[in-house]
C-alpha cells in the first residue's frame, strides 16, 4: 500500500510529483483521485504506463506468411511448437519511448540534458549554482531522480525553477517511460533547458536512453582519476565530462590529465570541463557550453 495516498499500489512503485503536491501518479497503476479540483487527464497516451504502442520489431526484411495476421516470421516444428524469429532488441521499448521524447524536445526547442554520476559527485549543487546564476536570463526546468525523498527537488524548487521528482523505489536508473510521464506534469516551456538529474549510479543509467540531446557525466576530484576506466560504459555513452570539486585538488591525489586520458580511451570524442560548483571556478566554461548547445537547437 502506498503510504502517501493509501492506494493499493506497492510502496516501492515509481511515483512522480511536483514540490508541495499532495497528489501524485503511479506508473503502471490505476488512476486515483484526491482532490475534486485536481486536474486529471484521461484518454489515449495517459499517464498509466501501460498500453503504450509497442514496436513489435516486425518488418526486418523477412519474407513471411501471415498465418496469424502477425507479420513475424515463424515456422512450425514437428511436435506442433511454433518458432517465432523475432530478431528484436530487448530495450526496443525504451528506445521507442526515448525517440518519442526526443521528438517532443525538438518540437518545443527544449535542450534536454541527462546528468549522470556516482552519488555525491555534485550534480544537485552544480544545478543549484547554475540555476541561480543563469536562471534570470534562460528558462530552465528540472527532473530529479532518486530512490526516495523529495530532498533534491526541494533544493531545486528553492531556486524558483519548475521541478518534478521521480522516486524509483527500488529502481536504480531513470528510463524513457518515466521521463515521458514526468514531462506531462512539468510541461517545460519552449526554448528552455531541461536538466534531468539521473539516479546517482555510474553503471545502470548508461544503458537507458531518455531521449536527451546530450549526456553529461560528472566525476568529482575525491573519487579518483581512474574512474573513467573503471566505469567505461557510462563514459563511452556521454558527450561531456565535468570534473567537479577542483577546489579539493590540493588535498587529494587526482591527476586531471590522467583522468582525461583514461576517459579518452573509452570515448575519444569526450569533451571536458574542470570546475567547482562551490567556488565557481570553471563555471563560465560550463555556461558557455550550455548556451552554445541551446542556440544550436
Amino acid at each position, binding site marked *: 500500500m502506498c503510504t502517501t495516498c493509501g492506494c493499493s499500489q506497492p510502496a516501492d512503485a515509481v511515483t512522480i510529483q511536483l514540490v508541495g503536491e499532495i497528489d501524485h501518479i503511479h506508473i503502471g497503476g490505476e488512476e486515483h483521485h484526491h482532490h475534486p479540483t485536481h486536474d486529471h487527464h484521461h484518454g489515449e497516451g495517459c499517464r498509466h504506463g501501460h498500453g503504450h504502442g509497442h514496436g513489435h520489431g516486425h518488418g526486418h526484411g523477412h519474407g513471411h506468411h501471415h498465418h496469424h495476421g502477425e507479420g513475424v516470421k515463424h515456422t512450425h516444428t514437428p511436435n506442433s511448437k511454433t518458432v517465432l524469429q523475432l530478431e*528484436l532488441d530487448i530495450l526496443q521499448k525504451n528506445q521507442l519511448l526515448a525517440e518519442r521524447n526526443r521528438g517532443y524536445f525538438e518540437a518545443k526547442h527544449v535542450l534536454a540534458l541527462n546528468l549522470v554520476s556516482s552519488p555525491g559527485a555534485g550534480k544537485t549543487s552544480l544545478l543549484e549554482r547554475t540555476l541561480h546564476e543563469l536562471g534570470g536570463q534562460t528558462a530552465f526546468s528540472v527532473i530529479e531522480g532518486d530512490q526516495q525523498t523529495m530532498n533534491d527537488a526541494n533544493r531545486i524548487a528553492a531556486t524558483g525553477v519548475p521541478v518534478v521528482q521521480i522516486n524509483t523505489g527500488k529502481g536504480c536508473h531513470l528510463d524513457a517511460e518515466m521521463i515521458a510521464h514526468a514531462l506531462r506534469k512539468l510541461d517545460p516551456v519552449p526554448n528552455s533547458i531541461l536538466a534531468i538529474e539521473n539516479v546517482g549510479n555510474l553503471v545502470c543509467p548508461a544503458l537507458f536512453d531518455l531521449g536527451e540531446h546530450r549526456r553529461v557525466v560528472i566525476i568529482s576530484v575525491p573519487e579518483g582519476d581512474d574512474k573513467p576506466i573503471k566505469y567505461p560504459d557510462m563514459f563511452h555513452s556521454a558527450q561531456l565530462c565535468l570534473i567537479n570539486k577542483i577546489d579539493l585538488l590540493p588535498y587529494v591525489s587526482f591527476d586531471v590529465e590522467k583522468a582525461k586520458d583514461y576517459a579518452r580511451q573509452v570515448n575519444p570524442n569526450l569533451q571536458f570541463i574542470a570546475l567547482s560548483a562551490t567556488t565557481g571556478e570553471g563555471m563560465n566554461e560550463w555556461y558557455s557550453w550550455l548556451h552554445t548547445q541551446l542556440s544550436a537547437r
Partner: protein
Amino acid sequence: MHELSIVHSIIDIAEKQVKENQASQVDIIELEIGQLAGVEWSALDFAWEAATAHTVLEHAERQIIQREGRAKCMECLTEYASETLFTPCPTCGSYFCDFIQGKELRIKSLTIS
C-alpha cells in the same frame, strides 16, 4: 541492478508474443548478447531466476549466443577483436574505433507451445 530491468523487458516481449499467438508458454528462448552490451552474466542469471517465476518464461530453456566484441579502427581501418570498450587498435594503437559487433542485446527467437 539493470539486469533485472532487462529481464522484465524480455518477459514483457515474451508474454505479448505468447498471447498474440494463442500459446501458453515459451519452451525455448534464443538470446543474442554481446560482450560489450553492458550485461553482467551472473547478475542476469540471478535476475532471471527471480523474475521469470510464474511467467510464460518460467520453464523456458535459455539458449544464449554470445557475440565477441569486434571493432574497426577509424584511423587505419583494421578490424580487430575488442574485449573492452577501450582496447586500442593492434596495428596503429589508436582508440578511435567503431564497434561493429559485441553490443547486441536481443531476442533472436522464441519457441512457443
